[in-house]
């Protein structure tokens, strides 16, 4: 009897030992906002976390957006449906030169706008991830949302120093300015949201208003950075920035450099959101006024890199603009465009070092029969083999904000277009020299304004290749406007399958100078994922073209 009383007692003790307080199990793997944000390290780590809103290894919003700009600017092309790239790359028609004069429509038979709008549904977004409107929107608002939480947390944090607060706030405003810049430069309209509690606004404002908001945030960052006490400004800045940026990415290394990058961005915001035909001398003066405060040679801007091992970074060995390009490890995603290759001037070292020409057998023609814009003889040389724009071993940095070259070329454009041709060309030469192009100087050669603009156009194409500016340029220069409205590009190279040249059985290809009517949207519609759950409130502007 004793024996089993003992056994029972034991069993009962074991079985009834639970208390209510035992239920308060806290997730031991992940910090909570309450535990992390009041600390110095926590708030620095949260600031660093904004990068994961720029893009993660599995879902790199920034990279998807950069590639989308690149293919719409016809620097690269992509015939894959992933992320909506091939639909975004739907040139309206391609007209073969005489004697053929054939007009080849895109295979969908509708404009890019109709095609992209048809994919702007929840189904296309959620099922096949081919709604292009989603990515840059998410990039902007995820970065903005995280920055809002950061600003609130800085406000209530009592342990960080006043100077660190200034830098962190400036970083938050920088990111907000960046976010609204991307949104306002790409979407017809959007909302302005400074809430840190997961709520948003239903009032959609115009893209111009978004740019105004972007610049307002940028100016806050400049004001804050300028207020850092001079003797220690750069030390404070450097210490904080080292903690809040990934080791494999680049960022302005001192306070003044950061301020210059922001001015360049403000100049860009001004210039790329107005058609060049509509720019007055006042506008060019405004661009110039900002750009003169902008980046100088030797300045480091924000750039997306990769960890050399391909781990613990934002690319995950794939999601980087340099890694999407056709390479032995990632064949077939994006290719260098014929239309980019033809913009290199003969003898440009950047071509000889940076571009490989395919053999005829490997030349890509009408890739998977999705359209003749999807063909090329060129591919970017790997950085590890001496190139600039592609990698297979996680090398290189892709500037996604501004650079010295962009700033110089904005100054050059303002100069040339307002009649100061030679000073403008001198800036073009400076950029070419800076990049080691090995080209003869064009300043002092007495070029006409039209030829000077052509030099500038080529340099913006080549010198700023894969920096996210090609579409902005194509839009403001009128290239992507419908041919009926004076848009399009003449004499641009297309790899034409020979069977299109009159003999259906013909094999092989011929590169012909064609006319491309792009007819692309200027500003994108608000994505379905937004308006489905945040319908426009009264007072909103239009959210779709």
């Amino acid at each position, binding site marked *: 009897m004793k024996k089993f009383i003992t056994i*029972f007692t034991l069993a009962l003790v074991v*079985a009834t030992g639970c208390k209510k307080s035992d239920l308060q199990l806290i997730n031991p793997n992940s*910090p909570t906002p309450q535990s992390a944000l009041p600390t110095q390290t926590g708030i620095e*780590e949260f600031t660093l976390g904004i990068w994961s809103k720029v893009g993660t290894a599995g879902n790199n919003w920034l990279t998807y957006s950069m590639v989308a700009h690149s293919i719409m600017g016809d620097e690269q092309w992509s015939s894959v449906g992933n992320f909506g790239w091939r639909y975004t790359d739907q040139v309206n028609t391609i007209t073969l030169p005489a004697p053929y004069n054939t007009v080849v429509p895109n295979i969908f038979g509708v404009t890019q706008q109709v095609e992209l709008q048809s994919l702007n549904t929840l189904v296309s977004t959620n099922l096949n991830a081919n709604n292009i409107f989603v990515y840059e929107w998410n990039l902007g608002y995820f970065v903005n949302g995280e920055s809002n939480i950061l600003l609130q947390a800085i406000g209530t944090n009592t342990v960080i120093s006043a100077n660190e607060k200034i830098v962190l706030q400036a970083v938050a405003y920088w990111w907000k300015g960046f976010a609204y810049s991307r949104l306002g430069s790409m979407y017809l309209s959007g909302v302005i949201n400074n809430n840190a509690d997961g709520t948003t606004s239903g009032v959609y404002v115009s893209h111009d208003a978004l740019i105004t908001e972007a610049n307002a945030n940028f100016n806050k960052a400049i004001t804050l950075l300028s207020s850092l006490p001079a003797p220690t400004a750069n030390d404070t800045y450097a210490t904080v920035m080292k903690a809040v940026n990934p080791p494999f990415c680049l960022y302005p290394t001192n306070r003044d450099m950061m301020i210059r990058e922001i001015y360049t961005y403000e100049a860009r915001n001004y210039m790329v959101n107005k058609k060049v035909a509509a720019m007055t001398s006042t506008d060019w003066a405004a661009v110039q006024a900002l750009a003169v405060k902008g980046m100088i040679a030797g300045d480091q801007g924000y750039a997306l890199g990769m960890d050399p091992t391909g781990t613990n970074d934002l690319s995950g060995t794939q999601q980087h603009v340099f890694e999407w390009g056709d390479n032995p490890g990632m064949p077939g995603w994006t290719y260098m465009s014929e239309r980019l290759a033809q913009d290199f001037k003969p003898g440009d070292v950047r071509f000889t070092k940076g571009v490989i020409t395919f053999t*005829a057998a490997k030349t890509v023609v*009408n890739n998977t029969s999705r359209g003749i814009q999807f063909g090329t003889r060129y591919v970017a040389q790997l950085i590890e083999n001496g190139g600039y724009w592609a990698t297979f071993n996680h090398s290189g940095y892709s500037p996604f904000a501004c650079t010295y070259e962009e700033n110089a070329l904005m100054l050059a454009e303002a100069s040339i277009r307002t009649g100061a041709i030679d000073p403008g060309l001198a800036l073009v030469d400076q950029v070419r020299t800076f990049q080691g192009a090995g080209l003869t100087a064009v300043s002092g050669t007495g070029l006409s304004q039209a030829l000077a603009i052509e030099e500038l156009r080529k340099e913006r194409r080549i010198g700023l290749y894969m920096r996210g500016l090609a579409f902005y340029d194509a839009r403001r220069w009128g290239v992507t406007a419908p041919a009926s409205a004076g848009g399009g590009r003449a004499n641009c190279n297309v790899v034409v399958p020979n069977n299109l040249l009159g003999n259906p059985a013909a094999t092989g290809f011929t590169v012909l100078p064609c006319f491309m009517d792009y007819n692309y949207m200027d500003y994108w519609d608000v994505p379905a994922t937004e308006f489905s759950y945040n319908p426009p409130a009264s007072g909103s502007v239009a959210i779709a073209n």
Partner: protein
Amino acid sequence: MWVLIFMVTHAYAQTRVITGTVTSKADGTPIPGVSVKVQGTAVGTQTRIDGNFTLNADPSSTLVFTFIGYEAQTVSLGGKTSISVQLIPREGQLDEVVVTGVGAPTKRSQVALDVASVDSKDFAKSATTNATQALTGQIAGAQIIQKSSTPNTGPTIILRGYTNLNSATPLFLIDGVQVNADLFNSLDPSIVDHIEVVKGSAGGMLYGAQGGNGVIQVFTKKGAKNGKLTIDVSSKYSNDRVIELNNPVATMHHFVTDAAGNLLTAGGAIVAPNADGIYPAAPAQEPFSTQPTVIQNNEKYNVPTYDHIQQANHVANTFTNSVNVRGGTDKTDYAFGVSNLQQQDVFSNNYNRTNLNMNFGFTLAKGLTIRNNIQLIYNYDNLLNSNRFGMLMAFPFINFDYIDPNTGRHVVRPDSYSTDGLNPLAEREVHTHYNKTPRLVENFNVNYKFPKFVEIDAKFSEDARHSETYDLYANQTGLPQTLFYGSNIGGSITDGYDNYRQEYGNTSVYFRTDFRNDFHINLPIKTTTQVTYDYTAQYDHNFSAQGVVLPPFPPYTISTTAGAKTAGEGFSQTLLYGYLVNQTIDYANLVGISAGFRSDYSSQFGAASKPFTFPRGTIYFNPSELINAHEIISNWKLRAAYGESGVQPINYARQVTYGNSTYGAANSLTALVAPTTYNNADLAVQVTKELELGTDITVTPLKNSDWLSSITFTGTYWHRSSDNDIQTAPEPPSSGFTGFQSNLVSLTGHGIELSLDINAYKSENFNWYFGTRFAISKTYVASIAYNIPVTSSIFTLTPGQELGTIKTQTPLASVGQINPATGAPYIAPANAGNYVMVNGAVVNKTTYAVQLTSTSDLSNEGNVNPNFTSSFINRVTIYKNLNLSFQFDWNHGGKIYNGTRQYLARDGISSDFDKNVTINGNTGSYVAYWQSFYNALNPLSSFVEDGSFIRLRDVSLSYDLTKLVHQKWLRSLVFTASCRNLLTFTKYSGLDPEVASALNPSTGNGLGNIGSYTGVDFYAQPNLKSYQFGFNIGF
């Protein structure tokens, strides 16, 4: 009362204490609940859970043993005071004592729930590797889908449709002890005695916040007290291959060729591999988009082509061996055994499992028994699970089996131009992986029955496993291609472990009264009051470390790697405890009611400390007790049950936390990231309320004939509503988030389940049993908070709509079809002449492209859930030693979205492309027409197919040689040959209609939180067809 007193006095005057044990003749296990009566008197008792009984009787009297499901037996005591009786099971009567869902062991005739039970002797012989496999088709209303041929992967089990949108996994118990579902995959099927299944909340409520998806309980074999020593040896061989009902790839092509028929690249070169077997460029497709009315898929390959399904999947062999020993003495019983499973899968992986089981029971004192059951399980596998879809998508002239003579290896990517993945057949040459898991499951039970009224039962179990994972990618530099497996071309080593522990404790007190015996009230009323307290705690800790870039010479350890070294770990802990109070009152066998509730506390509940309480109530009525036709209707029961139960939020879902990201392998910084979907501190349990009505009836219409010796029918109707179902509520991205965990959705459902068991014919030399199972289950979306529709893949949650409804675009059915968004026709009337009708769809005469509704104009194209599931089971015994059994499963009406077929249209290699079509008077296999269905992979009704199928699940032939050998030491010798999934009858055009997975065709991601666990075929790994041979020897 006078009679009662007289009887008691009378009995007392002449009686002595008689003790005994009742076991089953079939397998020697004790039978609880057997009615033991002294013939000609009202004196009687029932056997207890261990099969023992005690009563006062005259040693010269005769005892009558009756128990439903067994032949009655009359035994004369002949002066003895202790006897052992073996009852012979009555054929075809699925009537026994059940435990699951009712708490205390209860006679089936007094169970007010639909508790399905499958005995191990009725398991399909071809169910080899795990116990749940054996349930397929055996239980009405249980959909058991083996979705993966990967070893150690359990089936998807859906009981009565869906109660929530996250998980359909039921609660698993082994011998009354709650266990993690994965233990079921590791359990040795040869120790399973029988399995009980409670499909809904009405029974699940005993398990409160964990019972919402139903309960499956396995009972293991025990030895019998005073049982003879028996030894069973069994061995089985299985030969497995994937089912490939249809080859989805076209046999013809539309590539550019030269005059000799050679495929040409876009540049005009002949398509051919280089010296390393690598194709540098793809063949150029003929320009179907620019010449749509010309280009047809009608050219023959002039090079060999390969069936990539066959190249991707090999024939696999599986061996199982087991030895089990059982027996007992007067105070003990024992069962122990050892088994081994050596399973190969079609990817040439190996899985090896060894089980050691020891189950001992002791009677320490009168009424006091203890039982200890230990299982030691050792799993080893080297599973590499590369998806094979990339192979299917490759051009058919690619030979993935090709060995590069320069390297002696498979080619890493033969089609070097393709965006699809690497050749999975080459992976094993550079990738070594193994996983070793020793596991200990200890289950201790103490039971004490007071002489009267009270029984106390306490259980404690611990399930502990330690998984060790090792993963090595060789240094792959210097190979012909700069492509590599793993994260670094220099190779990597990853070591890790996962320690998991689950504790379970249960203390139950039963208070039983018998009005006649205990209170001398002459009413046949018995009551049982059950109070149970139990708790489950889980602990998990995993750790892994990695080093990259292998050194040039061994040893290869993380320490010797040249690159960065990283490590990580994770923890998880849960605790749930609760108590149950249940009261049962039975009036003889005639009528009984029960009512009770369970209250649970859990670390997974939002606002953690508030309990959730789940009430229940049941009633049964046996009209057969009142009618005088026992000869014909031996049992007829009406029953009703109501219960509530739940499914908890996932662990830590109630806590808002930030993710940790490490940046930089070498110079690491940690980032805190607010997740895009944020958690909700107030998440509530998903609660299901269910009403179940049913009847069980056994008739014996032709008592004295060989035909139809018994017919048992079980029918159940159920209706339920589930509230607070958790679904991510979409948020606009401008909020900074995409979603919010929320108790967003309510579901309703109803269904019918029917089972019929017929002993169709019984004679000296021929027995025929026939059983059928039939179930209908429908689940509807009742409401969604905020009325926000939720979309994922082909599925949308819409209030009022059935769960699993497919919504897609459709080809225009007429040239004048109106676009509802604009109110205007899709095709401007002026252009109507440019279109013709082809197979009921509008096709452009110029482009040959089928015209579709817009992506916002979707229509319902049926439901992925079958209209009904059913099975037909036959078992025939000829001359007592030849057994033939076969089982057909018939699922009718479920649709499948054939995403594989759509994807293959992308590259123009779908078998559709071989088909001729007549457009505008021209007939041919027009590529532009077929390609237009690809539609950017957007869901299109043309890919919705009827997924109905009839499958010969099992056919087995056994021959019992025992009598032929005729040795005294030989108890049985049986040889068995069987086939699993031998034949399938279906209109489905894919590989296998059964394994359509809920995957997103584009990204391969599972459809989280949308509540459809099946129905999209995006190259789901097909099921296996197996041929098996085995023998059992019993001593």
